[in-house]
């Protein structure tokens, strides 16, 4: 074990700094506010610190470590040139309040990304400001809210979400001040139009939906759903978490959506970084554009009076604030560093982003078929079912382990832990909530056929393992099954210094 707080090296260990610009003794600290006790931080030298964090990194599973079929999260390879670019001084050493003529390069990239994202989703205007998918949802709902206020429809206070929706959808709507109406899905996991018709009305502000949905299934009735909500005067919101599946094949604009968010950390390969940073731009149709958070980037022909810049001889990029803007959701320009990474990613594909989606869907359907066939061969087809019956899936699919749970008490959690012992990250489990003992598998387009073939074999191997083995899994990981209940009942949220002293 390596513990950060057990390093008690020399004073000044770690990182030696230059002297202050005036003698230390002459610096005046307000007496009533002078710190009485130093933080109990470690004293750790650079070699020890590097080894500590390297040790920690080796106890952490990333895409670089192995197959990471975590459904809904789109754990695709993160091209490394994107990281190199994000560390260039022209982004890493930029201050958000620098004047426009210092920021022309960054603004050129923002402009290109606004355009690219609008084209991909069939939207009119894009803001890059929201820093996460959930913040994108919230931002779009705020725009919708102000839009309705601007046309005097202040009674629209309800947001409809399917029961298969990501938890952020209802949470974001609640944060904006909406009441939530959760509607049940059909037995095939798709939206139930009769239920939708029954719940829409004069109080409907919006419906939030992801398509393909969280079961990985394309909502074939999406246009009808859009019509129902629009006829009632509501807005349609597209949760872009699953956008990776449909790029270049269809888009939310064509399906009738009014607003979308993009998860740049899913579709456009911003690394997930153990939980963030993400980036959640939103795109809207023109009627919502005046409400977007600013500033956005526009371009105009260069004037003789503009300062000289190097990015483009003919174009001047400038900020503008939409006239009825909701204000800001992040104080600066959003996660600009993530935008730059994703710019590098999109440039790699260009119009071939369609091929990216094709391969994401190809891999998901292929893996699904390989798992079914393998289970059939090994006589284990009875242990699970499709999460919902469907001929085709898009970028991900769900399986239900309910049958197995009934037979021998082995559930999705045990299978997940068994897969860890095979060297895989486990799929998403117990989500979406509409599938009993759910496992949600998303291979992404960056996994080879060999990886998928091997996973299918290992997955079915795990299904066939003894109940005792699976209950005891994982055996090979850095720690064995972790007691989450103990963690909640015996809260230890920071290093217990007192015990040591």
């Amino acid at each position, binding site marked *: 074990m390596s513990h950060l707080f057990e390093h008690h090296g020399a004073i000044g260990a770690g990182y030696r700094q230059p002297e202050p610009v005036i003698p230390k003794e002459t610096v005046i600290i307000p007496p009533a506010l002078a710190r009485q006790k130093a933080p109990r931080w470690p004293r750790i030298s650079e070699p020890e610190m590097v080894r500590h964090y390297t040790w920690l990194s080796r106890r952490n599973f990333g895409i670089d470590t192995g197959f990471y079929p975590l459904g809904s999260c789109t754990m695709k390879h993160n091209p490394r040139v994107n990281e190199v670019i994000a560390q260039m001084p022209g982004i890493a050493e930029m201050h958000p309040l620098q004047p426009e003529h210092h920021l022309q390069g960054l603004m050129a990239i923002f402009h290109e990304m606004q355009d690219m994202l609008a084209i991909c989703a069939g939207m009119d205007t894009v803001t890059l400001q929201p820093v996460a998918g959930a913040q994108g949802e919230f931002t779009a709902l705020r725009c919708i809210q102000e839009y309705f206020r601007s046309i005097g429809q202040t009674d629209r206070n309800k947001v409809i979400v399917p029961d298969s929706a990501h938890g952020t959808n209802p949470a974001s709507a609640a944060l904006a001040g909406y009441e939530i109406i959760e509607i049940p899905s059909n037995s095939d996991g798709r939206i139930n139009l009769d239920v939708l018709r029954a719940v829409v009305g004069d109080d409907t502000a919006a419906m939030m939906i992801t398509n393909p949905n969280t079961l990985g299934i394309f909502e074939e009735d999406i246009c009808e759903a859009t019509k129902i909500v629009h006829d009632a005067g509501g807005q349609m919101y597209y949760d872009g978490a699953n956008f990776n599946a449909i790029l270049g094949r269809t888009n939310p604009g064509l399906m009738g959506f009014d607003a979308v968010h993009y998860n740049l950390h899913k579709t456009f390969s911003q690394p997930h970084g153990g939980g963030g940073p993400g980036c959640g731009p939103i795109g809207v149709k023109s009627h919502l554009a005046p409400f977007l958070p600013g500033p956005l980037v526009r371009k105009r022909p260069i004037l003789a009076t503009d300062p000289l810049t190097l990015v483009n001889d003919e174009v001047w990029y400038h900020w503008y604030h939409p006239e009825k803007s909701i204000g800001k959701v992040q104080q600066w320009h959003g996660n600009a560093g993530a935008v730059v990474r994703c710019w590098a990613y999109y440039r790699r594909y260009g119009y071939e982003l369609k091929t*990216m989606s094709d391969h994401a869907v190809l891999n998901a359907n292929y893996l699904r078929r390989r798992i079914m066939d393998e289970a059939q061969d090994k006589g284990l087809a009875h242990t699970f079912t499709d999460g919902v019956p469907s001929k085709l899936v898009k970028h991900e699919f769900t399986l239900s382990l309910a049958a197995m749970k009934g037979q021998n008490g082995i559930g999705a959690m045990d299978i997940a832990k068994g897969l860890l012992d095979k060297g895989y990250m486990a799929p998403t489990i117990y989500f979406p909530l509409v599938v009993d003992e759910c496992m949600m598998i998303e291979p992404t387009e960056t996994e080879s056929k060999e990886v998928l073939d091997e996973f299918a074999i290992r997955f079915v191997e795990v299904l066939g393992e003894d109940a005792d083995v699976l209950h005891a899994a994982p055996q090979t990981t850095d720690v064995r099954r972790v007691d989450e209940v103990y963690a909640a009942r015996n809260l230890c949220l920071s290093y217990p210094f007192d015990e040591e002293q």
Partner: protein
Amino acid sequence: MVDQLPNFGREAEMLKTMGMSSLDDLFNDVPEDVRIIEKLNLPSPQTEEEILADAKRILGANVALGDRVSFLGAGIYKNFVPASVMQLINRGEFLTSYTPYQPEVSQGMLQAMWEFQTLICELVGLPVANLSVYDGSSAAAEALTCAVRVHNRKASQKNTLYVSELTPPDRLSVIKNYTQGAGITLRYLRHLSDGCLDMDSITEAAGSCGVYVEQPNPLGILDQNLIDVKSIIGEDTAFIVGVQPTSLGVMEAPGNYGADIVVGEGQPLGSPMTAGGPIYGIFSCSEKYLRQMPGRIVGKTIDVDGNEAFCLTLSTREQHIRRHRATSNLCTNETLIALMGAMHMALLGPEGIRDLAIRNMAACQLAKTKLLEIDTIALPHVNSFHYNEFIIELPGDASDCLEYLDKKGIIGGFDLANWYPDRKNRMLITCTDQTSAADIELLAAHLAVWSSTKTSGVEA
């Protein structure tokens, strides 16, 4: 493109397994009237070398603040991130992992974040911290809504919060967006002519759900009045303090003078400026707020063999469990940037953070002294204590002055007319640990020239 897709060229073989002959077959479930037939209206795919060349050209057209003498701050600060930090966060196991839902294979990030929580708790003087929110502005907003959840039942001023009138408009705008949905009324705390808090307005805030002030405040002033706030507002109103975290190397931890929730822009600790994002927001609180706080929290626990282990805990507050009743919609946070913060804090140690704070204060103090020597420039809060930044009053528009300095290769500071449109002659001058004595001399020399032309009426 091909270099990213291992199955490129093998589509037919894979499709055959499924009894299909074309990739189009995979999209039969997309209704025909919404299918796209034509090519996406985007450029051709580029190679890595071409992308890199374009990035160099386009981003090279920016003027990197790092390449200039600069006095621009106002919330984001030029800092130094040790090389080992930059190297370590690029370890693929950190970079390419997801939120640690499977703790058995995520002990590294979980432990690192538990250590981050500890480092923050120690710095701010509170027992609880989460593993980051988006940035300082969402941290402030989340703290305020959290305060309403905890205190509204007992509050005599229901659904009411008091926020410093100095809060920068863009930050206030974020706060307004986050609080409007709950029907919260925002009122403002006044400041005196010396820039410190007017304690009468704190008295007015007693009985509300919470007060939000910053230390140092947005004008760079270290406000000694804050030590009396908690005794005035009492236990039923949350005292929320926004901090510049490096200042706590010399300044008392707000938890030790009554702060209930401490938030802040973590950026100066470990994160490059990156045009304002990704950075990370600090969120820490006392135990009273624990079950109402936003974001992810790591706890130490045991595995089935009784060995030490870590996992996410108190998840029932969160959106993936509680859905519309969650304490926040937070899902993705800023873990990787918080990790940079942890590494930087670890390297600094208790003496290093003090030295860093002193370097910041020293530069600010030297700049005050030097600019005070210029007759034509006034320092409105000259007798106050400052950290990082202070206001100067110019004999002309700050925007003119900044343009003049820019031509001399200096990023002068922040034009306060952006925050207070009627104050056109005020500039916020920021010095950090990265500001040298020579930088300050250069600024003083140019400011003296510019100011003298303004007062003599002769254009420079």
